[in-house]
């Protein structure tokens, strides 16, 4: 509860910074919107329409006041409420980041663990080398490479979007994989998964590499800890020892890392979604930057911050599950 309460001043501070940052971007949305048709009159009209001509403090307070009423403003580019635009696209990004996270965690933890158990041998060296490569390759480059190879050249996976446009599918929730399962349109569910794989692999690459390295380092450390040696001396059988003592203790730094990776995933989604024309919040945000769509920038980044804060709160809480000593009284 205390932690939850801390969120409020954090977000308030963020809202001020965000507002100032967005307004500090050169130029304004009016010319971006009007293009060749912009005359000084038209620019003035747009600025007056959206209140961009009023003092900054007044603009901020107006925005904050609207925020508190659940009004996130209107996109100057699409003319639709920011909240609507967000809600339409958020399921796509959740599906994508979740799958990326599943790949990163599902592959990263076992791989790191195996590398640690075979420390100094070929498997370990390969894993360390590969994870170094994984961290250094930029997400958009990997995305582009994967797409070019597996979608354009080999044609194994679709190149763009979330669903084959020619497929008639029912979408009650907006989560396409879930939709396919719920409505028993199995082909649609599979098609949605196929659309997710390449972007999720690209997006998950950096978190995967980081999680692998952290797991490896953490397991090695715990393996050599005194209490592990004691437990072994007391005759705890190796499989039980590994599961109950080593892995559980090694997971603490890993879970912190996973929480932090969510931020990386959400920012990586901006690039990955653009490359794969995946219509989530990332690609929309990228366009908003280009069009100086103030309300969208402010609203979307605030949403992302909230998601990030909530996920890390959940990670904090999960410490308690992994290690009873960490439970907050």
């Amino acid at each position, binding site marked *: 509860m205390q932690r939850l309460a801390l969120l409020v001043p954090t977000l308030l501070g963020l809202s001020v910074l965000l507002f100032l940052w967005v307004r500090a971007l*050169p*130029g*304004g949305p*009016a*010319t*971006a919107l*009007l*293009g*060749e048709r*912009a*005359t*000084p009159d*038209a*620019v003035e*009209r747009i600025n007056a*329409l*959206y209140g961009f001509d009023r003092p900054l403090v007044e603009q901020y307070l107006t925005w904050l006041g609207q925020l508190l009423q659940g009004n996130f403003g*209107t996109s100057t580019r*699409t*003319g*639709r*409420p920011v909240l609507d635009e967000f809600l*339409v*696209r958020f399921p796509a990004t959740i599906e994508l980041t979740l799958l990326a996270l599943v790949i990163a965690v599902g592959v990263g933890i076992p791989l790191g663990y195996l590398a640690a158990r075979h420390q100094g041998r070929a498997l370990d060296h390969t894993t360390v080398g590969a994870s170094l490569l994984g961290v250094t390759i930029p997400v958009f480059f990997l995305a582009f490479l994967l*797409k*070019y190879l597996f*979608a*354009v050249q080999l*044609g194994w996976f*679709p*190149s*763009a*979007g*979330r*669903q*084959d*446009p*020619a*497929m*008639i599918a*029912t*979408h*009650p*929730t907006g989560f396409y994989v879930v939709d396919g*399962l*719920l*409505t*028993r*349109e199995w*082909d649609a569910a599979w098609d949605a998964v196929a659309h997710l794989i390449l972007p999720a692999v690209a997006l998950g690459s950096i978190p995967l590499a980081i999680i692998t390295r952290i797991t490896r380092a953490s397991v090695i450390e715990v393996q050599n800890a005194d209490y592990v040696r004691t437990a072994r001396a007391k005759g705890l059988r190796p499989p039980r020892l590994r599961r109950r003592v080593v892995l559980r203790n090694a997971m603490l730094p890993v879970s912190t890392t996973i929480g932090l990776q969510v931020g990386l995933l959400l920012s990586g989604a901006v690039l990955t979604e*653009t*490359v*794969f*024309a995946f*219509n989530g919040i990332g*690609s*929309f945000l990228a*366009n908003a930057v280009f*069009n*100086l769509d103030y309300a969208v920038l402010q609203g979307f980044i605030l949403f992302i911050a909230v998601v990030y804060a909530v996920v890390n709160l959940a990670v904090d809480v999960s410490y308690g599950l992994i290690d009873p000593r960490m439970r907050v009284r």
Partner: protein
Amino acid sequence: MRTILKATAVTVAAAMALSACAASERDENEGEDGGDSTSSGRDTFIFAASADPASLDPAFANDGESFRVARQIFEGLVGTEPGTADPAPLLAESWEVSEDGLEYAFDLKQDVTFHDGTPFDGEAVCANFERWNNFTGVLQSESLSYYWQKVNGGFASSDVESLDGTGKYESCTAPDEHTAVITLASPLPEFISALSLPSFSMQSPAALEEYGADDVGGDSAAPVLPEYATEHPTGTGPFVFDSWTRGQEVVLAGNPDYWGEQGQVQRIIFTVIDDPTARRQALQAGDIDGYDLVGPADVVALEEEGFQIVDREPFNILYLGMNQADPELEDLTVRQAIAHAVNKEALVAQTLPEGTEVATNFVPPSVAGWSGDVETYEYDPERARELLAEAGKSDLTIDFNYPTNVSRPYMPTPEQVFQSISADLEEVGITVNAVPEPWAPDYLDRMQGTPDHGLHLLGWTGDYNDTYNFIGVFFGAESNEWGFDDPELFQMIGDARYQTSVDDQTAAYEAANEAILERLPGVPLAHPVPSLAFSPSVQGYPASPVQDEVYNVITLDD
């Protein structure tokens, strides 16, 4: 482990419970389409759009993506001659204009029905015109009724003084089922041309009423479109609306009751891919059948891979502006020297797509007011040097503004255009001071909002076949971009606009174009060709300079 199992069991149970309420809608869809649900078949045409349409009600739209969809669903009284910008009969089979240019009698096509089964007749025509003219409140904001405001000039009544009763439209009567007579308060010679815009499509009065087409909520900053504009667009065209998933796709189905040729395509899917590279790759991967705005750099590569490139006849202009607020450019002799120094042929060959024409006027040749008698300022570096010496500016230094990181249909690579022209200028002894800036907002702000620029690159793509749509936009009044005040020229262009007879108007526009090139506020450079790309199976795409492209004429090979 047991906890995980338990959690999984609960999740599965919950999912199964939910799936009972989330029934597939596929069966009824299949019934409607009568088609295969998963394979694209060969009656489905998938086209990549760069964005969602802004509105499915074309009266509230002015963007290319909305128009692309609207062209399939709707038809106007006037269409265009295939492959040209010239007006041609569509829902009106013919029309007669009264002597004074105030009365237009349209003879309407018979036996045409809207998608909702209601008849298209004189009453329906009048209902549409009355609707546009009686827009009130939010509907009068420029983001919604842009073209009605632009063409008509106002509304029946408005809170804004400049729009209050200032429109040219006066009344509409339907003496019989097959005739509609529009009366104007004062002449509007571009009326017929303008009617070919999708914004002036004929919509079903019954559907407009039923789905509350004019019940736009919100305010002018954030209009909330009604059900009609998002779910029930109802026209007379060869395709009927099926569904729109925001950020994903718009789906249309063949209209079985279409009055004309229905063609092979029975399903159109406009899938949204906003990144140009992603569009190209989607075509290469076989995920789409075609896309628009192909980058010049991609044209050759795609052709080599066996894809088809279809060119539209250019309906645009790229020019080199010479701002006379810059003291160096105030002198006509200097401007003439610059015009003679620019090698347009080389520029076109080196930096613009194949098929691009060199420009001599500020309007493309397909527009009626284009003149073959304008001063053309042939490439002649020697003459340029002489003129500079004559003006006493042999060691001229000049600012050259150009935009970066932008690709416009009329200017795919501004940096290259700048390089080419600036080399030509250096050749005759002019020192060029390069001023590159990002397109939006810096560059546009500087061009339109300040007098602080010298030579600059800009252009325009026309809306419909009308000279005023080009030179009126540029030279209709004093502006920051050009930095000159020439009431005589402004008057000339304004007078030409209001000539009642088409012949007189064409002559007046030709004279205006000649006058502009004499005064030489800028150098018309080129009319670059916009290209579309298609998979090899797509035949007969009806490329049009004004993008009047309806897909019922497309054929798809297996």
